[in-house]
């Protein structure tokens, strides 16, 4: 594995960024949940929180894109996002699949829309 900044990161620091927390199982964010900033970065804010708010101004950004741009593991970004959501600084557009009754059960209407979108590429 090519060393990247994250790989050289002190695990203790990543632990500190999240305050040592891990996600609750019933409160997970999907990799492609879309995040929208509802607030501007403010002075005194944890720098990672401020960075997320800057990235999500204007257009929604998927969790996984935030992770890539911040160079933080997905699991760390999720915890940071839950902080921001719980304080009303971001809103989350959950994927429709999160509400689907069972795994791998996209409805026909969605599939047809995907097909139309792909065929017009």
């Amino acid at each position, binding site marked *: 594995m090519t060393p990247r900044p994250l790989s050289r990161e002190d695990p203790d620091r990543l632990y500190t960024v999240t305050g040592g927390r891990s996600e609750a199982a019933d409160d997970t964010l999907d990799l492609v949940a879309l995040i929208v900033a509802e607030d501007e970065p403010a002075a005194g804010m944890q720098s990672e929180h401020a960075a997320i708010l800057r990235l999500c101004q204007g257009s929604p950004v998927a969790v996984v894109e935030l992770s890539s741009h911040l160079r933080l593991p997905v699991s760390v970004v999720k915890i940071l996002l839950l902080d921001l959501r719980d304080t009303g600084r971001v809103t989350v557009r959950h994927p429709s699949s999160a509400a689907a009754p069972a*795994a791998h059960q996209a409805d026909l209407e969605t599939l047809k829309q995907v097909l139309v979108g792909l065929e017009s590429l």
Partner: protein
Amino acid sequence: MDSKAFDPPPGARTGGQIAGTPLRRTVRDALKIVIVGGFGAGKTTMVGSVSEIRPLSTEETMTRAGIGIDDPGRVKTKNTTTVAFDFGRISLDAHKVLYLFGAPGQERFWFLWDQLFSGSLGAIVLVDTRRLEDCFYSLDRLEAHAMPFVVAVNRFGDGGRPTLDRVRDALSLDEGIPLIDCDARVRDSSKTVLVTLVRHLTRLREPSAVQEATS
């Protein structure tokens, strides 16, 4: 080219803006398709050939608790698995965006698959005929997860041999699973693979297909 070939664009960390094409403000639903395959099968190439953004890379980590946990001096060397993966996206319409993930197929990265597959429409198994055995594990796991998939043979450099029939045989693929040729470097070819998958998913959803599958 494989799953760690791309770094985030320079300056993305401090620029404060997402580089490249931002999503439309109206987008409210993101869908997923996962491309799995062995090392070097062309996953990142396929993502890149159809994505509207240059493929991005990120990481997920999993820490196994309980190893060295009683010895604070060993905390930093506890057993952490890091997996890098690539992704791209295609805006489908004003409200929907499709994310494509390239997922390494090795067994030790299975913890990532669960996250990627959760809510995914389906999967593409990308095959390099010179290393057919690389996708056995992926096929097993997809079947175990009841994740619908198609198989695409990346014909880059194999001269069109072996034939699809031979590949189907070698992989013990059920007749109902679409198997097609592709060139992952070519946008139209990758697009055809995606369309083949979504058509397959559509057929699986139609009541007649369900009856056929269970009869």
